[in-house]
């Protein structure tokens, strides 16, 4: 596929600049007043900084649920019917326990998946949403797009900790010897991961590529 203008030095013609709107689902181009893509049915919207409100809202929700996810227990372990003590481990507690067992590799996986990745995600999404729509050099735009792709790819992997809790609590039901139950942090962590995934999905990558006015051209002529 080639660009519609034949001049190599000409600025890239975008659908928005041509007075059209591109579908984010399938790429089909439609006149600007179309509401939904006639091919795949996705709702059409021009790149607009107002869409960042959804990003910030989901991000805030994710951040709020990340706090109890770290403070409340993730796992409740009972050994020998509580005689050997019962313990409640938070996310960090679980990692420390794994380090004590000497399984550094797994400790690293859990630490990366449930601490580094979520916090990195919060920072990167907030940064992308802050700088979105501001003019950028081509290199900066490529960096931002790569950051977004990394977040989209890696974000789902945080769910690993929820699955570990589910498997452990289903499996370790040895009556008197040992039982494991899930703690409330599992729910808040799952919600936090889901909300940040939604936040990354609602970020419109087309905003990376050009400084766009806060209001569309049509709004301004109407005002």
């Amino acid at each position, binding site marked *: 596929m080639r660009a*519609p203008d034949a001049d190599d030095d000409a600025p890239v013609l975008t659908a928005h600049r041509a007075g059209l709107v591109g579908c984010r689902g399938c*790429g089909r181009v439609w006149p600007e007043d179309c509401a939904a893509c006639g091919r795949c049915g996705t709702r059409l919207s021009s790149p607009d900084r107002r869409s960042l409100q959804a990003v910030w809202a989901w991000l805030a929700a994710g951040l709020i649920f990340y706090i109890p996810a770290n403070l409340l227990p993730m796992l409740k372990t009972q050994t020998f019917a509580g005689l050997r003590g019962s313990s409640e481990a938070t996310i960090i507690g679980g990692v420390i326990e794994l380090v004590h067992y000497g399984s550094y590799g797994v400790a690293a*996986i859990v630490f990366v998946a449930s601490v580094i990745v979520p916090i990195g995600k919060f920072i990167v999404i907030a940064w992308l949403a802050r700088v979105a729509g501001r003019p950028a050099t081509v290199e900066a735009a490529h960096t931002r*797009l790569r950051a977004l792709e990394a977040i989209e790819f890696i974000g789902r992997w945080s769910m690993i900790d929820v*699955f570990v809790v*589910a*498997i452990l609590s*289903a*499996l*370790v039901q040895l009556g008197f010897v040992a039982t494991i139950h899930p703690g409330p942090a599992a729910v808040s962590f799952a919600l936090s991961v889901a909300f940040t995934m939604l936040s990354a999905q609602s970020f419109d990558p087309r905003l990376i590529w050009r400084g766009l006015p806060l209001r569309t051209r049509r709004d301004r002529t109407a005002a």
Partner: protein
Amino acid sequence: MIEAGNYDIRTGAGLIACPRCDALHVETELTPGETARCVRCHTVLARPREGAFTQIVALSVTSMVLMVAAVFFPFLEISRMGFGNATSLFGVAMAFSDGWLMPLTVAVLGFIVALPALRAALLVYVLLPMRGQGLPARHAGAAFRLSEILRPWSMAEIFVIGTSVALVKVAGLANVSLGPAFWAFCALIVVGAASDAFTCSTSIWDTLEDRGASTDGREVVPDAPAAAANRAAVEGGGDAAARPGSA
């Protein structure tokens, strides 16, 4: 109807906008094996493969069969000091079933069983009738769109990594034996990854459009070899497949 390579800048007919950066491209018919990349952000716009529909249908059916096995066979078993416990995939999801953790049961079942199975079924529904020169089924477009929306939420491969982390945690506590469902799940990951690698959503949308799903006469004539020869002549031969900046 718009001929291949022609476009109308006022209505957008015959044009494709990069979903990542909004740059406009003239829609051209690719031959299998070619890759079209965005001139500005280098995102892959299309990468059709020979016989991809048949392969995806086969892989999707495989993954549905594996999913049935994964659900009904025992998943993991542990024993220590005469006490033993086995769990199936449902048991894993049911771990959250007491009290107010209940919604998480539904979510986990969805992530690891329902959504992967639903996606496989949707792909079969969309692609099976379109093998060869067949016409798409009713609402095939909506079905494929749903499958694309669900893609990030089907987390079977994450679950398998989660299983291995859990196994390391339990290994110190008791003896663990892996059931057939565990191996079925591992196979499911491989099959799913292969299916995703073969899926080129642009070619599926194009085919849906060319075969008579709502088109408004905007479809590009599907004469791939002729279009490729034409393009090679225009662009000076060689690897004409949408080099970045080739204009």
